[in-house]
């Protein structure tokens, strides 16, 4: 069945699903029409626009059935690890043991959006004194107390120290409610002093050897805790295998990003790419299936690029996006305004870099953990953003603020100033709450203004025969 790539509504997906199934589309166990998730409470789905490929359908169904997988894992006697705030390190370790399933309770931050606040999770957080002055990840507290979204994990870990302050406060509140947490600490990454022994981290930053050794020791505590609930040692060989598999996910995503963000016209919309990128850190609770889902998505993108087909019209303004949005609809909005994503930094760019396989595995994981953009200076993050803008030829930058997130209070100005000074491309900041409907006109206005500015710059550069694409 030949289909022209395009974005379609949930209703249109249902019709297409029926056609595809009638034509013999093989479906995974979690397959089915997307609209079946709406009666479960996923009220936001009818308001989104979706890519019309079977690969995208599989991606969405994979995402929206994670709760079922976690419940099934518990029934099968697997041990559940709730890993918080490390963004891509502990799951690699946990999935190295066949009896462990890791997931991010932090992921509950999207429930208020997907369920359009109907689950009442934020109200539970409010009642615990964690109000809207905190990041929407506070929804996690409601998910723990209601037990309606994931089983209570057998082990909870949380990365603290140089990571997000408000997340740490939320996790401490959770701990105080009787959910014991294994805390492990990341120091604030700094440049080595003159003459100090140093190591290079994935992503290109350099850190003192002593900091890596500290994180290594912290992760050894995590390894012992994982082994304890798994009932068996997690050997270096098992970790090495886990790293290799994680790197397959990362390399697939790397190719997907390079293709999707560089090709003209845009072969895969922003929303599907956002969800795909997120798989790098959490595997959606099934590492092997995650790889299969990404392989199919990559194949779809590759075929579209080869055929010169796009899911969006050509000529869209190439936008680099910083931070994930609390309301998924905003990614659609960018495209409706005439933009497209060409490069992202969703807070976990380190989880898209390959984990070194030529090092002892714990050393490699420690280096990767310390490369987390949240643990270093915002200037480092801005450096990396500038570098990636050069890679993808972005023409404008959106810094999407997460309401209440402590890092967002300061990073926007640093990123804006750095990008403006080095690359001269326009930057705008928006703030996106979990349900942004009331703010949609102001968000759209900023996006419109940004895209207009970028288009005018493109025309000027074109008239002066300067390259439109930006390089560092």
């Amino acid at each position, binding site marked *: 069945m030949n289909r022209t790539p395009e974005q379609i509504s949930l209703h249109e997906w249902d019709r297409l699903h029926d056609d595809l199934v009638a034509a013999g589309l093989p479906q995974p166990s979690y397959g089915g029409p997307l609209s079946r998730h709406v009666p479960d409470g996923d009220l936001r789905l009818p308001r989104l626009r979706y890519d019309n490929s079977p690969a995208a359908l599989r991606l969405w169904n994979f995402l929206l059935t994670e709760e079922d997988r976690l419940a099934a894992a518990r029934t099968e006697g697997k041990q559940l690890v709730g890993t918080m705030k490390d963004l891509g390190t502990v799951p690699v370790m946990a999935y190295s043991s066949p009896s462990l399933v890791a997931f991010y309770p932090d992921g509950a931050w999207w429930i208020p959006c997907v369920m359009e606040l109907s689950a009442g999770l934020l109200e539970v957080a409010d009642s615990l004194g964690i109000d809207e002055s905190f990041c929407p990840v506070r929804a996690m507290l409601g998910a723990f107390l209601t037990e309606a979204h994931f089983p209570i994990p057998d082990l909870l870990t949380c990365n603290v120290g140089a990571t997000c302050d408000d997340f740490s406060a939320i996790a401490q509140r959770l701990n105080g409610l009787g959910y014991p947490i294994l805390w492990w600490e990341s120091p604030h990454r700094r440049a080595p002093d003159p003459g100090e022994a140093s190591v290079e981290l994935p992503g290109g930053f350099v850190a003192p050897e002593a900091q890596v050794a500290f994180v290594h020791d912290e992760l050894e505590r995590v390894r012992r805790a994982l082994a304890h609930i798994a009932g068996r040692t997690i050997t270096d060989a098992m970790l090495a295998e886990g790293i290799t598999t994680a790197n397959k996910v990362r390399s697939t995503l790397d190719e997907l990003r390079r293709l999707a963000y560089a090709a003209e016209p845009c072969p895969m919309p922003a929303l599907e790419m956002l969800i795909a990128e997120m798989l790098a850190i959490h595997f959606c609770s099934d590492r092997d299936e995650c790889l299969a889902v990404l392989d199919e998505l990559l194949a779809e993108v590759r075929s579209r690029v080869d055929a010169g087909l796009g899911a969006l019209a050509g000529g869209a303004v190439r936008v680099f996006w910083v931070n994930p949005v609390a309301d998924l609809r905003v990614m659609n909005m960018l495209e409706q305004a005439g933009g497209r994503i060409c490069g992202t930094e969703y807070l976990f760019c380190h989880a898209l870099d390959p984990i070194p396989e030529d090092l002892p595995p714990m050393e490699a994981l420690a280096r990767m953990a310390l490369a987390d953009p949240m643990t270093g200076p915002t200037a480092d993050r801005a450096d990396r953003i500038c570098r990636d803008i050069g890679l993808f030829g972005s023409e404008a930058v959106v810094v999407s603020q997460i309401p209440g997130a402590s890092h967002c209070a300061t990073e926007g*100005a640093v990123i*804006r*100033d750095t990008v*403006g000074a080095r690359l*001269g491309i*326009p*930057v*705008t*900041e928006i*703030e996106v709450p979990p349900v942004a409907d009331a703010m949609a*006109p*102001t968000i759209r*206005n*900023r996006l*419109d*203004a940004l895209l*207009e*500015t970028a288009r*005018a*710059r493109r025309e*000027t550069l074109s008239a002066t025969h300067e390259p439109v694409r930006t390089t560092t």
Partner: protein
Amino acid sequence: MIGAGIDAGSRAIKVALYDDERDTVVATDVLDQGVEQVALAKGLFEKLLEDNGLDRGNVSRVVGTGYGRSILDFVDSTITEITCHARGVRRVSPGARTIIEIGGQDSKLIRLNPEGAVRDFAMNDRCAAGTGRFLEMVAARLDVPLEKLGELARGSHSPAPISSMCVVFAETEIIGLLASGSAPEDIVAGVQTAIVKRVAAMAGRTMDEPVSFTGGVAMVPGMVEALQDALGRPVSVATDPQMTGAVGASLLAANR
């Protein structure tokens, strides 16, 4: 032919007609915004045409701008107020490198390149503390006409500190200040300072000159002086500052 610009703002609708052949803005007009936004804008547009002996056949293109632009179903295209203000300022204040626009419900800082095109911008559309709404609130609370606020503030010797970042809470502060005997002129001066400080914060640490001040708030006496004090540099009020966006839209409508 005539290029028409319609700025559907939060507090007022502004219309400008630009004659491409004579390179002249032939007419402008303004009307308070209301519930029937489309009808009000269309009515003002048609009245302005009629008053100037024109009809729709004389108009080559109509560009809508402002927050209400997307619902103006009779315009040919829409452009954001960022671009329109930049274009308007380029006409009335060529050479300006920074625009500060304070309207009824938002404020903007627009950086221009030497050719007058938008280089970058920052907006405050989340907090009324940097907008005209703040002034309206204090005018109503003090029972002083908006146009008299500047005159009143000039009598202040000690502007009252307004610490709240939110207009709702600031109003509570003002009630407290009044109850404690603060002079109305000190309260008004304090509010003006609070507004311009919010706007100055958007500028960051660098700002190219000359700086042009646009938007309805630029017409309120005393605001430009307060802005100059906050920024520590000269600021000039654009010609007919409330109309800058509509004029820019009319120029863009005429492909100017």
